[in-house]
Every structure is written in C-alpha cells, then in structure tokens.
C-alpha cells in the first residue's frame, strides 16, 4: 500500500472551519497522490483568503477598479517584502520570491500609470501587515519555508480571483487586455510556487482563483 505523504496540521489558533476547509483540500490533494512536500504546516499559519472574490462592485468605473487592483498589488509587494525580511528562505525560494515581488511591483506601476492617465489619484501604499491580513490572513504567523509557500499560493490565488472578477467589469479595451496579461502572470507564479510545494502545477483547466 502506498505510503501517504507526510503532511501534518500542528495545533494552532486557526478557526475550526478554516482548518476543516484546509483539511478538505489537503485530503483531496492526497487522494490525487499529492501533498505539501512532507512539510508541516502550522494551523495558525494556514492562509485564509478573505473578501477578494466579488471585491469589485458591478457598478465600479474603471478608475475605481484600477484603484482597488493597485491596492491589491501593493499588498502583494508588502507581503513579499515582509517574507524576504524574515530570513526563512533557502536561496532558491528567496530568488523566486524576489522575482515575484518584482513582478507585483511592475503590475502596480503599470496600473498606476493607467489610473493617472484616466485622471485618477493613486492610492496610498499599505501601512503594514494589517493591510495584508485584509486580503490573506497568516503573514504574521509564518515560521517555515513551507508556511511561506502556502501563504504565497493563497496570495497569488487571491490575485487571480480578483482579476477573474474585474475582467467582467473593465470597460476600456486596453485595461481588459492588461488585466488578462497580469492574471496570466499571477497564474504562472502559482505554477512555480505549487511546484516548489510539490503540488500539482495546473490543477484546473480554468484558473479562476477558486481552487
């Protein structure tokens, strides 16, 4: 009988429903012969996706949509900066994290240019971890590289979900195309993160951020 990959849920403060959801996903992965690379993921650091799906109101105009998307990209940059400052990463994952951080900054810069071209005012940079927690909880609880990978996967999934949502609402053609190009890049980020976590790199034919 094949040995089940070692994935443990350590005791922590996470909400029971959150743990149950994670456990459900994990068992689904294990049934497909996958796991988090034998890593122990602390329950307290299980990232929790918050309020990203449908973050954009149906009647938001392009300026409002861009402002919200920029905030999300700023949050990603801050999250990766925080992770890099913790000194938890192997050289390989640190290099990957720097690349991801650089891409998110480019997304923020491009969207900011688009916003100012429309006469909008760029939003202020996020103040701290609390702003990250508003998108994905768990950044402050990261203890290991496995925690980092799980958190980053949740963060990039949140980004994909947000762009999936906003693509239905952008009005300007250029923004629809730019949004798709960013969403596709976030999907590629997910591939390398999933591979680093020994998960299936492309688990679904439609990457909606809903997996």
């Amino acid at each position: 009988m094949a040995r089940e990959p070692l994935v443990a849920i350590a005791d922590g403060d996470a909400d029971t429903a959150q743990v149950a959801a994670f456990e459900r996903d994990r068992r689904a992965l294990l049934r497909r012969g996958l796991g988090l690379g034998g890593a122990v993921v602390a329950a307290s650091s299980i990232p929790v996706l918050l309020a990203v799906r449908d973050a954009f109101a149906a009647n938001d105009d392009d300026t409002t949509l861009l402002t919200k998307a920029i905030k999300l990209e700023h949050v990603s940059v801050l999250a990766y900066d925080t992770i890099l400052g913790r000194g938890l990463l192997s050289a390989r994952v640190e290099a990957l994290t720097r690349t991801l951080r650089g891409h998110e900054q480019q997304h923020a810069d491009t969207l900011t240019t688009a916003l100012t071209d429309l006469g909008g005012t760029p939003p202020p940079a996020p103040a701290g971890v609390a702003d990250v927690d508003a998108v994905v909880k768990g950044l402050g609880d990261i203890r290991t590289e496995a925690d980092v990978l799980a958190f980053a996967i949740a963060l990039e999934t949140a980004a994909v979900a947000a762009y999936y949502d906003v693509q239905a609402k952008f009005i300007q053609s250029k923004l629809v195309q730019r949004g798709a190009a960013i969403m596709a890049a976030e999907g590629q980020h997910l591939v390398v993160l999933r591979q680093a976590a020994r998960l299936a790199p492309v688990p679904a034919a439609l990457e909606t951020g809903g997996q």
Partner: protein
Amino acid sequence: MVDLDIDGLSRRRLFGVAGAAVSSAALLAGCGDDTKNPQVKTAPDESDTADVELLNSVLDLEFSSIAAYKTGAGRLRGSRLRIAQGFLEQEQEHADTLTRAIRDLDGVPNTAKRRYEFPPLHSSAEVLRYAVSFENNIIAAYIDLLPKISQGEIRSTISAILTCEAEHVAVLAGALHEPQIPDAFVFGQAS
C-alpha cells in the same frame, strides 16, 4: 508534415486515460443574458452573434491544440508524456467550455476538423518547444479577442482559460529547463 486523422484515433486508446471531464456547466451557467427567459427562444441579438463568431475562432484553436498534443505525445515518455496527457485533457475542457458558451448564446459551435497538419517533430524537446509556441499563439489570440467580447462573464471565463494556457507555458518551460516566469505580463506571441 504530420497528418492526424482525428476520427482514426481515440484519446482513451492513445493515453489510456478517461476522457476529459466536462465540468464547465456550472461556471458558464451565468453566461447568458439575464434578461433572456430560457424558456422563450428568440433570435440572438447582434452582440451575441458577434460573440459566437469570436468564440468559434478560438474554439478552432483549441481543437488544433488538442490534435497537436495527441500528435506530439507519440514522441514523449515518462514525466513529459504525463504533462502532455494532463494538458490534453485541459485543452479538451477548454473546447467543451467554449462549445457550451456558444450554445448558451444560441450559436452553433464549430467542430474539430478531420485532419490537422503539424511540422515534423523528431524529439521530445522539439515537441515541448512546439507546444510552447502553440500555447503562446493561443494566449495571443485570447488577448486579442477579449476586448471584443460583449458579455462580462464570458470575458472572465476566457481570462481563466488563457491563464491556464499561460500556466501550461510555465510548466513546459520548466520541463525544458528554461525560465518559467520571465515576464510580469503574459501577452503570448502570435506565430
């Protein structure tokens, strides 16, 4: 050139896997115009007709992609074959999703051609590089098509498909030991 007789090949026989899952129904359930009563058949409006034409153009590309993975699989072994098997199933799911979207718009979906022609590929690396090229071509087509689609929900669905294609490119690049995430923006590349 390599010809593939679609009717002469079975996905199941080629790969020994179950046929692709058709799971797009839920995703696309909301793609129709909310103002339309599904019980009352009316003539499709102008924007729906345009959307159908656009969706059929990328459906043709998905059919080509399915045929390309079937053909290329003959040159692959081991982990590279498993990648192609997985991607073939996902391309089939994309085709199923587009087909359903077209039908939801009261359109007539195109069907796969009987024969496709591909350049001769002599090694697994050549197959993977051709797949990268093919996937990038599809991404570029989707990026070009997106702003022309009138219905927001279909734009989201198309974006989810093209993101999956971008993920395929990243996996294929990794299998070729090439950079997997070279750019912050993925626009694909028309061939």
